[in-house]
């Protein structure tokens, strides 16, 4: 199980990192990252493969991040190694620009809309997003449409 879990984390490192950075406004990024990893490890034994591993990961990570309260107990050893692992890698110019646009747009969205956008960009279907968020597929589609319109208003407006 340990090896499998390691593989899951390795494959989803980007998602975890992004979720942690999205929710770290008032807390340490490493604190949230560490808590998400802990909760994923705790929940992994109950993962029965009824949904995809990505859906399960989003549920656990978002539920952990959105109710996160900074803990007084900090695992120093873990934090030291973590800070090395989660150091952002350098990106190419175009990717960097896209990431900046994405991040600045994400910051204008509510947490729910930002979560939906993350999954949308990740290629999730409305039904999969429904499974994670817990609202109807129609509501998800409506929200995606609204997010798209807001984005286009903001960025196409700027380009013009």
């Amino acid at each position, binding site marked *: 199980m*340990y090896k499998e*879990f*390691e593989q899951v*984390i*390795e494959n989803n*490192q*980007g*998602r975890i*990192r*992004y979720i942690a950075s999205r929710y770290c406004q008032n807390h340490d990024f490493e604190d949230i990252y*560490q808590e998400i*990893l*802990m*909760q994923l*490890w*705790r*929940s992994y034994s*109950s*993962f029965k493969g009824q949904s995809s591993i990505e859906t*399960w990961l989003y*549920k*656990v990570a*978002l*539920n952990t991040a*959105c*109710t996160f*309260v900074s803990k007084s*107990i900090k*695992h120093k*050893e*873990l934090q030291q*190694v*973590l800070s*090395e*692992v989660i150091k*952002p*890698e350098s*990106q190419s110019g175009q*990717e960097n620009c*896209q*990431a900046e*646009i*994405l991040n600045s747009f994400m910051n204008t969205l*509510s947490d*729910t809309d930002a*979560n939906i956008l993350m999954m949308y*960009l*990740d290629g999730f279907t409305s039904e999969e997003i*429904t499974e*994670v*968020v*817990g*609202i109807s597929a129609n509501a998800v589609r409506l929200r995606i449409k609204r*997010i*798209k319109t807001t*984005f*286009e208003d903001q*960025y*196409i407006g700027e*380009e013009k």
Partner: protein
Amino acid sequence: MMLDDLKAGWDSEMKKPVKHEQLATVLEILQRETCKLDKSIKRRDILEVSIALLLIPVWGWKLVYSVSLMQSVGLWVAILACLFIPYKLIKAKKVNVQKNDSILSFLLIEKVKLENQKKLLESVALWYILPLMVAIILITAGATVDSLGIPQLTLQLKIYYSFCALLSVGVYLLNKRAAKKRFKPLLDKVNYRIKEIK
């Protein structure tokens, strides 16, 4: 630029390489720390319940040698309190929050859990302080009764009661403060998120 144009950027963000060896170390420490944390939570829960349960035979034994009806009533109250307090604590913890539920159902269950914990702290005077105080007063005052069954309180006992009363007020206020400071902001946060999703 359309929203879908950002998909490529997102994909490359997700596929950033990881430092494999360090990740293995992180997971190893993580596994160890989680295990340690689970053990300490289990130990704390067992301690909470076992202290109360271990006191029951003590009260029972005292009951056999009770010197007055007042003391016997006090000992019965103590026995019942030793059963009731762990029951209250266990019941409050029983709400099972699953992190792999959908965000909405997770938040709704989390809300129930937080409300229970807040209520538990706010009502600490009723389920924790009151039965213990009543038991202490009846047991100690019951030991001083005269032939008519009227307790003869000494100065030391009066000082002791005053100290217990002060301690009880302190515990009550601390819990009330914790309910307000710790659980109210959390509940507000959860309620806000539920409203936002709906």
